[in-house]
């Protein structure tokens, strides 16, 4: 590999190569800049609005997903083995997007929770996790006045049951 391998001859770019450049600029560069300037999202063009809202208070308003065993014991479903392929925070965000708060219509969220319970039981029967059998799944709205290190995590200011679903008898 001698130095002759690359020559700086300043040749003009060929027409086909210039065309490829303009296609790339029009297909990827221009839409990315436009979405950045005006907002909106159409995968994979995003406006990266995470953490963009103002958050003037330290109140935390979040969800908790709990399973109920046949004898009424509560199992917090934050073990990702129980909710594959979701991570816990992803699953809760997904429930928000399905209106689990019931601001308009919680039916899609309730349907999704039934699907989640069905998947949990299917995976349990297949031996994919060692969680207990569950009768129902419950979603709570939990609020804290946040403290450093989430010191009061186990003692929220309020905890309200939003949804509770069980598998239909035919499933």
């Amino acid at each position, binding site marked *: 590999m001698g130095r002759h391998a*690359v020559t*700086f001859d*300043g040749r003009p770019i*060929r027409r086909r190569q210039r065309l490829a450049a303009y296609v790339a600029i029009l297909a990827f560069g221009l839409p990315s800049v436009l979405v950045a300037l005006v907002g909106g999202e159409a995968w994979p063009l995003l406006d990266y609005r995470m953490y963009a809202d103002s958050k003037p208070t330290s109140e935390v308003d979040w969800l908790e997903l709990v399973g109920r065993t046949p004898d009424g014991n509560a199992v917090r479903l934050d073990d990702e083995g129980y909710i594959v392929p979701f991570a816990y925070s992803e699953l809760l965000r*997904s429930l928000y997007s399905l209106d689990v708060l019931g601001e308009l219509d919680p039916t899609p969220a309730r349907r999704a929770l039934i699907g989640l319970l069905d998947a949990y039981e299917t995976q349990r029967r297949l031996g994919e996790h060692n969680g207990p059998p569950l009768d129902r799944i419950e979603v709570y709205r939990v609020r804290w006045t946040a403290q*450093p290190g989430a010191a009061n995590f186990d003692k929220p200011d309020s905890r309200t049951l939003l949804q509770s679903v069980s598998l239909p008898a035919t499933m």
Partner: protein
Amino acid sequence: MSAPAAAWNTFWFTPAAPWPLGLCRAGFFASFYILFLARTDLRWYALFPPEFYQPHSFFAWLSLPVPSWDGMGWLVTAFEISVILAALGLMTRLATLTAFVLGLYVLGLQFNYGYLHWAHAIVPIVTGILALAPCGDALSLDALIRRTITGKTASTGGQYRWPVQLVRLIFVTVFLAAGLAKLRQAGLEWVLSDTLRNYFLENQYVFRSEGAAARSHLLADWLIACPGVCRVLAVVVLAVELSAPAALFSRHGRRWLIPLLFLFQVGNALLLYQDFFFAYLGLYLFWVPWGRRSCSSNSCSEGAGAGGMNF
């Protein structure tokens, strides 16, 4: 040629050596594979309960189906192979094109389930750019084979400059978008209130297990105890995000801004537990002024000098 046209041509098409683009290609795909694909089983996306499905963007427009476990297995395997081939530079055009199409689908699938790993979006965009670029002309097995058979190597040209510039543009656009989104949604309140401090606090609850496991929560706790420091940090974050495009045009600004953006992302990982950016760590390679110091000509662009790496 008018001044704007000359500036346009200088920005996009100043001749550059082929090897920096080859190096960026290899580094980007290799790091994406090592830091993300090798550690993540994307086949799991086939296991989302169908009741969670809310199709977005082209998934909705084209009514694309959700694959079965086996179907997803084939797609993911093909995606992984294409990424590896693209890193090696073997059948580079086909590999990058396949990685682009499959990446759009495979990485985007989770977008239809109500949440998103924002950082992943840049991966198919950069892959698409590289699919249109002659990124396999150097530092690739294709180039090695071509050289062995024909004795020919790629020479310097403007076709090796625009892909690097376009990836840089996309890169800074991500940060600009994040900064503008803050101004659109919160305005100056984002820096004048305790917003950043409160996000540090909130994420200790939202990412409870990650926060408890990370030693960095001690740093977050210290910052939370100093609201003034958090506000200064918020000003710096917003200023760096909005200034990011300056890195495209100012060599001096680039020296400061790119390390600051990297630190900003490390801070996201440590304090907000958002470590997804490691998936595209290789993009920082596009900012390294490869070969500039060894370039003897004044008209030589970044990467146009330092020959001898053209296999």
